[in-house]
């Protein structure tokens, strides 16, 4: 990045802000710093030209993964609100309220993009649909809702979604994004680690696949429980995945961490992640994994896989046609 990319004529910024168009018309790429048109981003599923994978909402995640952008929204259980009567500088219920308002504002904007209404009271949203013909429950954790923090609502959502996958003999796919436990729920939030782990056990006992898609960021109690217990771990490029975040570690060891530490590619190198998949290939990758793990449910006919406009040419449909051919030969 040089001074030219940063340079804007004086007054341009205020002109941009003054304009009638929403201020989020431009989005700054966290990798290159360049400004990208929001409409361009929409087309590229929020991957910037420099390859940064921006965080996306549950709705967009569902649209990205489900066949024909169609899914059945899953109503998630209600939980006891603010059991500890927790208060920091604000009472916990008012933080929840603010987070809900933010989410429903986003929902209003995105609903035109298509798909059924999203039912989301906390940081989780779930949908049932098909991924390349395979019945799948997808649970998406939303970082925009209080940092995707894991509390009772998220834990119950996880259990409900897992049990629905078992009831419908569907694959269970969880897209993680979280800063960790929800401190406002104290030790009750810690208890979501064993609780979600038990739900995974139900899915695996039923012989169904549990696939984790790790997105930016996944850390703390979430990475130390369900995010790291998948049959297969797929990560989006550049996602921060850690137990202790870099800031905590830098404070402990008093030393700067190297670039790329705790990013998806690093975790793959260290053996914690199976696949680092570009968002444009994500559906094809997931479909290929599920295809192998649930052979009886695979779609019979050939089909162009991703919902994405321009998939990279080397990811599909090879992965699917080859084993099918082999099977026929046997």
């Amino acid at each position, binding site marked *: 990045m040089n001074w030219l990319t940063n340079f804007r004529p004086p007054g341009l910024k205020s002109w941009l802000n003054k304009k009638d168009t929403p201020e989020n018309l431009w989005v700054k790429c966290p990798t290159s710093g360049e400004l990208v048109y929001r409409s361009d981003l929409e087309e590229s599923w929020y991957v910037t030209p420099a390859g940064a994978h921006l965080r996306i909402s549950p709705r967009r995640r569902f649209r990205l993964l489900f066949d024909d952008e169609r899914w059945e929204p899953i109503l998630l259980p209600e*939980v*006891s609100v603010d*059991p*500890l009567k*927790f*208060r*920091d*500088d604000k009472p916990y219920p008012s933080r929840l309220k603010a987070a809900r308002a933010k989410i429903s504002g986003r929902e209003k904007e995105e609903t035109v993009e298509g798909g059924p209404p999203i039912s989301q009271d906390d940081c989780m949203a779930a949908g049932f649909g098909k991924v390349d013909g395979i019945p799948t429950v997808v649970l998406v954790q939303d970082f925009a809702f209080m940092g995707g923090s894991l509390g*009772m609502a998220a*834990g*119950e959502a996880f*259990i409900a979604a897992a049990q629905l996958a078992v009831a419908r003999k569907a694959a269970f796919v969880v897209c993680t994004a979280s800063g960790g*436990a929800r*401190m*406002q*729920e*104290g*030790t*009750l*939030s*810690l*208890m979501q*680690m*064993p*609780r979600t*782990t*038990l739900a*995974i*056990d139900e899915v695996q006992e039923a012989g169904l696949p549990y696939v984790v898609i790790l997105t930016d960021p996944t*850390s*703390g*109690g979430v*990475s*130390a*429980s*369900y*995010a*790291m*217990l998948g049959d297969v771990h797929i990560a989006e490029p550049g996602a921060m*995945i*850690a*137990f*202790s975040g870099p800031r*905590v*570690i830098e404070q*402990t*060891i008093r*030393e700067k*961490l190297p670039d790329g*530490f*705790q990013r998806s590619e690093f975790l793959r190198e*260290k*053996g*914690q992640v199976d696949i680092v998949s570009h968002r444009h290939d994500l559906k094809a990758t997931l479909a290929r994994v599920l295809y192998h793990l649930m052979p009886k449910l695979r779609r019979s006919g050939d089909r162009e896989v991703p919902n994405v406009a321009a998939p990279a040419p080397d990811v599909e449909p090879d992965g699917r046609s080859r084993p099918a051919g082999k099977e026929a030969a046997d």
Partner: protein
Amino acid sequence: MPTTYLEFEKPIAELQAKIAELEAVDASDDGPSITEELGKLREKSEKQLKDLYKNLSPWRKTQVARHPDRPHFLDYLDELFEDYQELAGDRVFGNDEAVLGGLATFKGRSVVVMGHEKGHNTESRIRHNFGMAHPEGYRKAVRLMNLAERFSLPVITFVDTAGAYPGKAGEERGQAEAIARSTQRCLTLPVPIISLIIGEGGSGGAIAIAAANQVLIMEHSIYSVISPEGCASILYRDAEKARDAAEAMKITATDLKTLGIVDEIVREPLGGAHRDPAKAMQAAGKAIQKALRGLEGLSAIELKRQRRERFYAIGREGLS
């Protein structure tokens, strides 16, 4: 009597110093007896201790839970177990001394026992990394639980950690995965597993060996998702507010029992376990034995189901 007094115990420390002084005089002097005076002071000191400990605030409990003289895992091992044979290593990378464990006899039966060890002096604290485990510690725990499964031995764990160690090496070797697997191993065991929180139950580092059929806690222990200091610096943006955070997070034994997170509270001697370690540990032994008896005769399937129902019930029942 303890060698270390906590800040809030200062009045007791002063009285005790006075008593010690008079005792010395009494022993060397055959002048007018000061026995009466001594008796009064002792009584006063006892009452003060009782009053102080009757209603310990969560922050004070946190300090007691971390008291350097509080009995640690190795003390419990000495007091309650026989024929201990330590087993070392995770068979992958190394041997983590923050989590120790092995085979031992508990009340006449063989068990797998393990726990976090914080250490008692500078040298041992460094060796045990202050009870903060690396992935190898949790992988050793998984190995020991596998052994327990293979030979149908009950598992007893002692929890005492500020948390898993937040370091570069641990991250590189999959700290998150190691914790997740250890928690999962606890939950899928076909044998009984009992956990006792003896000091600090710190977050993921604690739950990794505490996802048990029965979870017991010493009266002045804490069990928390993050340390009060950590919570204060994140939510209140001021680590000095640890006192408030300790209050707000409901981390004391009584609170946890109300929330259904622990099953049983083990009473400690007056003034905390560090004032009479043997008595505290014997009470713990009895509680563990009782918990084990309660699980006797349950099949592998029933044990797994009990654990599932126990953890699923948390937060669903008994909350407002």
